[in-house]
Every structure is written in structure tokens, then in C-alpha cells.
């Protein structure tokens, strides 16, 4: 960047700084409150840590944060996260179980069918023979006719 660009950047910075003085009181108050809240939750060194955590616990809730309930789940320790993950793991395990069971059933059905075909008296080629099919139909009709006559 040349000097003109840098000058412009610093002039813009100056203009932006002017806007900071004109922030409404409600905004500056809210920022100050947020700062106080942050300081109350400051990560302390080992010596004062227990005292601070107990002292500031009641004021630790963040007001008006859009998804505080949802966010709280993910800002808690790993144990709380694990609780949230358990239903997901159970669902995935269930789906895998159902898939396995269905696969086994399908294989068993196919095996049963194959066994029935292979152990039949008729050879497999008989089912593709049109003449044999016609013979079977005729046989069936012959069987039905005497039954009607009676």
C-alpha cells in the first residue's frame, strides 16, 4: 500500500473513532455491564480459584442471549456433552441392528428357496421348457374336468 492509501486508512480510522463517542447511553451501559460480568467470570490463578467460583456462581447466567439453553449444553463439561451424544449413538446402533437383521433374513429366505429348488425331483431346466409348462397346464385341466363331472 502506498502512502496515500495509508493516509486514507488512518483518516477513516479517525472518522470511525468519532462515531464511538456518539453511541447511545443504553449501549455503553450494556457494554459496561457485559464487561463487569466478564470480569466476574475471569479465569483465576490456582490460589483464588475456589473462592471466586463459589462467590460468583449465582450471577453467572447470561441475560438475553438468544440460544442460551442450547448454548449452555455445549459450554458445559464433557460429561454433559456425552449425555447429549448418547441418544444419537443409540439411534445409530439401532439402525445398524435393523439393517443387519434384515440382511440375515433375506439371506435365509434365498437359501431356503435355493434348497427347495435344488432338492426338488424336477431338474431346473424343466421350468424353462415351454413344452413341459404346457404339459403341466393340460394335466391340471384334466384333473379339474373329472371333478366337475362328479
Amino acid at each position, binding site marked *: *500500500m502506498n502512502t496515500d*492509501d*495509508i493516509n*486514507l*486508512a*488512518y*483518516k*477513516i*480510522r479517525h*472518522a*470511525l*473513532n*468519532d*462515531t*464511538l463517542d*456518539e*453511541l*447511545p447511553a443504553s*449501549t*455503553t451501559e*450494556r*457494554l*459496561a455491564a*457485559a*464487561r463487569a*460480568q*466478564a*470480569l466476574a*467470570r*475471569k*479465569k*483465576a*490463578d490456582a490460589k483464588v480459584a475456589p473462592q471466586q467460583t463459589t462467590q460468583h456462581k449465582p450471577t453467572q447466567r*447470561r441475560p*438475553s*442471549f*438468544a*440460544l442460551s439453553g442450547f448454548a449452555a449444553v455445549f459450554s458445559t463439561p464433557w460429561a454433559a456433552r456425552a449425555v447429549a451424544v448418547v441418544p444419537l449413538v443409540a439411534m445409530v446402533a439401532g439402525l445398524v441392528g435393523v439393517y443387519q437383521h434384515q440382511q440375515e433374513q433375506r439371506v435365509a429366505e434365498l437359501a431356503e428357496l435355493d434348497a427347495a429348488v435344488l432338492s426338488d425331483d424336477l431338474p431346473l431346466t424343466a421350468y424353462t421348457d415351454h413344452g413341459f409348462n404346457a404339459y403341466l397346464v393340460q394335466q391340471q385341466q384334466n384333473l379339474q374336468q373329472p371333478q366337475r363331472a362328479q
Partner: protein
Amino acid sequence: MATDKELNDFLEGVERRAFKQAAYAVRKDEAALDIVQDAMIKLAEKYGDKPAAELPMLFQRILQTTILDYFRREKVRNTWISLFGGLGRREDDDEDFDILESYEAEEGTTVAESSADQVERAETLRLIEEEIQKLPTRQREAFLMRYWQDMDVAETAEAMGCSEGSVKTHCSRATHALAKALEAKGIKL
């Protein structure tokens, strides 16, 4: 390790700029305040024991991540709203909200300037902010960190998670874009 006073001084010095920075990105004051509050708390909770010199870079990194999280949540929320869009109207729909309305309300307080000067100055500031909002996100981040937050190239690169060369490129493009836009609007700084 930063003392309570150092952390307080740092946050006090940076909070207004952080608020504006978030407001340029999300364009909603309330959301920007929530983001800054969240970033401050995260900094204090997780990095309160870091040296004071590291705080600016850490805070910027947290602020950018929190802004990104906001957009992610908005995306999810908008998906649900569009799915159930026919069931009711949004009451908090403030598309027409102008971030600078609040500044205009404060105008009468400056007695040193004439009314014409005040209006002209406010208008110039409004146009500058408008052009900054229009910048691509990464360019705006780099520009504001480098020239408004007083961070050097290395700190900016670390906060943005990119190379120093990228920071220089983003800054240069942002400055050129701003210069061109302001010139087109007849603003001379």
C-alpha cells in the same frame, strides 16, 4: 498473567470498537451487543490467565468466531422459519433497522458545531460506515483489525487464521474499494 485491572482496562478500551465491528457484520445492535458480551465472557473465562499483551489478538479471534457462530445459528433458524413460514409472521423482523439511527438521535448534543456542520459530518460518517459494511467480510475484518484495532500484520494474520500476505492483500483491496466508493460519493477526507 493479566490482572483484573489489566483485563478491565483492555475490555474498556476495546468494547465500543468491538461493538461497532460486530454491528457492521451482523447489522443488528442487539445481536452485536450479545456477541460482544459473549466474546468478553469467553476471553475472561478461558484466557483470563494469559499475559495482557496477548489479549488483543485473542479477543479478536474470539470475536470473529462468535460472529461466525451467530451467522451459523441464524442460518439454522432461517431454515426452520422458512420451513414453517406459512404458520405465522416474524414479529422481530427488523430488516429496515438502521444502525446509525441512534447516532442521529444524539445529534443535538454537540453545541460547538453549527447545525449544517453537524448534519454534514453525520452524513459523512454514515456514508463511511455504509461503505465499510459493504466490504467483503474478510476485507472488512482485516481492515478494521489493522487500522482500527491497532493490530500488526502478524497479529491480524493469527486472529484471522490466514497468512500475513493475505492480510496485506485484504487491507489493500479494502482501502482501494473504500477510496473508490467515497470518491464516487464526493466525500473527501
